[in-house]
Structures are given as structure tokens and as C-alpha cells.
């Protein structure tokens, strides 16, 4: 089995940063101009 777990960790962290970052941005008010 290939040893590629580092890519999995990187992808999961990247997705968490994107989703969590956007959620925090939005809950803090976002741009809210429509």
C-alpha cells in the first residue's frame, strides 16, 4: 500500500481552513452588501 498519508492530512487541513475561515468571516458579518 502506498505511503501517501501526508497528502490526505494536507487536503483535510486545507478544506478545514477554507470552510472554517469562511464560516468565521460570515458570522462576523461578511461583506453583507448583496
Amino acid at each position, binding site marked *: *500500500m502506498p505511503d501517501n*498519508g501526508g*497528502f490526505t492530512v494536507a487536503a483535510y487541513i486545507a478544506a478545514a481552513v477554507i470552510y*472554517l475561515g469562511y*464560516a468565521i468571516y460570515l458570522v462576523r458579518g461578511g461583506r453583507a452588501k448583496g
Partner: protein
Amino acid sequence: MTPIEAFERARRRSAVWIGVGLLLMAAVYVRALVFTPVEAVQGLAQKIFYIHVPSAWVAFLAFGILGVTSAVYLFLKDPRVDLFAASTAEVAMVFTTAVLVTGPIWGKPIWGTWWTWDARLTLTLFLWFVVLGYLVLRTAVHEPGQRARYSAVLGILGALLVPFIHVSVYLFRTMHPMPVVLRPGKPTLPGAMLATLLFSFAVFTLFFVALLWHRYALARLADARARAEAERADA
């Protein structure tokens, strides 16, 4: 209750659901990384599938909603529909970004390259640029009716790309794998992996709805405040 109070309440309620979505997202991570079997050929990198594919599903769902609401706006000319479409576009941008970031991280260990200019990847990148153009357009055009009309046309054009992206793996020679769930016939995924994927689909969809609800509440709140201010200035 005034409109401003109603949208403030929607904002608070949707924020709670965003929190619930994030907790469930953490549960997806645990289930996918700890309790789902490792695929024999690809190894651990295959687990990127459980966040990449649901992100793509939600992005395409969001573009579908954007296309429909944009078309509805052109018929009704209702500013609320325009605000809803704009909210959908912003959230669609986030999910498409996640697809375009997690895809190459999966591609590198499996294909040996971060990126290839094949039909599905290139069209998805185009889709990202279309929604980026949509959001930039909204900041550049200040007359509300004109902004809504131009945005609606661009929103429909973006949504038209989605069916091409889905069938691109059948139409063109590509390195991207064929669908394993949304395909003619039964899903080809083993049971435990399919259960994790379906759980992830459900959680990502709920998270999307919460984000969209919150974004729309913010847009309506800003709109209601601007109207109240204009009325005060007139009085």
C-alpha cells in the same frame, strides 16, 4: 416585529446551524479518517474522496440554484431573488475553491501531477473564474437594477457549465475517474465507503444550507438598514 429584527433573528439562528454544521463536519473527518477502511490500491490518499466529492456536489448544487434564481430574477425583477442569487454565488465560490484545492492534492500522489489540462479540471477552473467574475461584477456596477440583470445573465451562463462538467468524463479522454455514485446503474463503491460518502454528502449539504441562510440574512439585513436610513433621510 420590524424587518430588521426579523433578519437579526434569522442571522442568529443560522449562525447556530453553521456551528452545528461545523461539528458534524468534524464527525465526517473522524468517520472518514478513523472508521472507514483504507482503499487497497490508492492507500490513504483515497480518503480525500470523502471531502472532495461532497464539496463538488454542493458546488454544483449551488450553481444549479444560482442558475434557477437568476432566471427567476429576469422574469420577476424581484430584488430579493437577486440577493438570494448573489448569496448563493458567494457560497458556491467557497465550495468550488475547496474542490480546486483538494483535487490537486489528491492528484499528485495518484496521477503523479498536481494538475492536468483535461476537460473536467479545466471546466471546473472556468466555473471558478465565472463565479469570481460574478462577484467582481457586483462590486463594479452600482445601479441595483443593472447590477442584478448583468449578474443574472452571468449566473445562468455559469450554471450551464455544470452539466458539461458532470458528463465531461464520458465525452472526453480524461485522467479524472468516472462517477461512482451519481451514475447510470448502482453505485460501485463498497458499503462502508458508500455510507461514509453519503454521511458526508448530507453534512456538506446541511452546512451549505446554513451558510446560504446566514449569507442571505446578512444581505437582507443590510438592505433593510439601507432602506430605513433612506427613509429617515427623506423625513
